[in-house]
């Protein structure tokens, strides 16, 4: 079943992006070298950057359609976004950060949902702290939890491990694998690391210089070792 269908073009100065791909449930990896346009693609899906042409459809909802003049604003897309940097709100506690999406949508408290995700990410002991006092790995786990607790129809993760050292990466990956196996929300996972994606991806879309050069199973990760290229 297709969850997400992207067909978008965007010109940013000299850089031309034209991508077309589909994502099903599970984890769809956007894989490619730096500058391939991966972050541009997720920003377009999230609604932070409007494409010049094309359309983006999530489930049965058209999020963007240039021809029809549709551009749903980010706050109505119900798409969770875990950024490269955690972007936690410094003036709020971890608990308030986690609660932010629910409060903004005006839903009533759901203690079970909250407890389940806090347990999944193992952040229960951090709830009353401020983000500043957390380690990089803890912050990124909270950021994942915050995006999940808004009950997104899709979760975007843009190099969520890029800002962490090797030890922290090993610390977080198992949580993300757990999240995938929990299978409640489809994910689009951006990375330039084949090693990382081998652990988590179920489908791979390879980008290079603003184009989709291949799409298929995780065997695509073995075809080229971009890790070694960089």
């Amino acid at each position, binding site marked *: 079943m297709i969850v997400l269908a992207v067909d978008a073009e965007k010109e940013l100065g000299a850089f031309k992006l034209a991508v077309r791909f589909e994502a099903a449930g599970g984890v769809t990896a956007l894989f490619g070298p730096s500058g391939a346009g991966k972050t541009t693609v997720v920003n377009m899906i999230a609604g932070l950057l409007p494409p010049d042409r094309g359309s983006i459809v999530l489930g049965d909802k058209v999020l963007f359609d240039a021809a029809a003049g549709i551009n749903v604003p980010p706050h109505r897309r*119900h798409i*969770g976004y875990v950024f490269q940097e955690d972007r936690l709100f410094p003036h709020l506690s971890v608990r308030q950060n986690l609660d*932010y999406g629910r409060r903004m949508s005006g839903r009533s408290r759901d203690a079970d949902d909250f407890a389940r995700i806090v347990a999944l990410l193992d952040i229960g002991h951090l709830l009353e702290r401020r983000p500043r006092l957390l380690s990089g790995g803890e912050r990124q786990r909270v950021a994942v939890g915050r995006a999940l607790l808004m009950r997104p129809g899709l979760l975007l993760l843009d190099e969520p491990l890029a800002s962490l050292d090797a030890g922290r990466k090993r610390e977080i990956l198992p949580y993300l694998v757990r999240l995938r196996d929990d299978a409640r929300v489809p994910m689009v996972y951006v990375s330039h690391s084949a090693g990382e994606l081998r652990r988590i991806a179920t489908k791979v879309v390879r980008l290079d210089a603003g184009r989709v050069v291949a799409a298929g199973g995780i065997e695509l990760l073995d075809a080229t070792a971009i890790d070694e290229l960089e």
Partner: protein
Amino acid sequence: MFDLSPAEWTAVLLSLRIALVATAFALPFGIAIGWLLARKKFWGKTLLDGLVYLPLVLPPVVTGYLLLISFGRKGPIGAFLADHFGIVFSFRWTGAALSCGIMGFPLMVRPIRLALEAIDRRLEEAAGTLGAGRFLVFLTITLPLALPGIIAGAVLCFARALGEFGATITFVSNIPGETQTISAAIYTLMQIPGGDAAAGRLVLFAIVLALAALVVSEWFARRAGMRVQGQ
């Protein structure tokens, strides 16, 4: 502790009331203008920027005179407000609050604008993806993060309003109990023989008041700064 006469107390309390009301009414405008200058590009932005800072560089008497001819009983704005809303500024304490608010406005806008410019816009983007519309993002992210600057701006405006003299006395004169603030009272006392002692008491009180305002604002600003940075 301060052996002020009832007339002197009247001037002190009036000054406080005028400065507080001036700051409270200026604050929403200060935030709005600070936000416009920090975030928006529009035609006439340089002009608005200049207008906001004008009271800082104009002689206060000129500001007072301009207020008199526009907000006075016969001025176009003053007549309109008096006829339609019953709001009268001339020779009232409300007029003093208006002139003090305008004189303090440039000092209020600047720190608010700087605080808004310093905010990491990516946090607002993140709030958007979490389901907050633009106004909610402003209320829950932008405003709290700018709070130290907003407090600093409010305190500076308050301090300026407390000491304002030239524009106020030009616009609403020097009427005991209505428009005679501490500054105006000191000025009056200095003009009459034997008024030195009373003037001295008020001067002393003004110094204590200013120091207290500084200490309190420092405390507020530090607390707000710590909150924002999550300490």
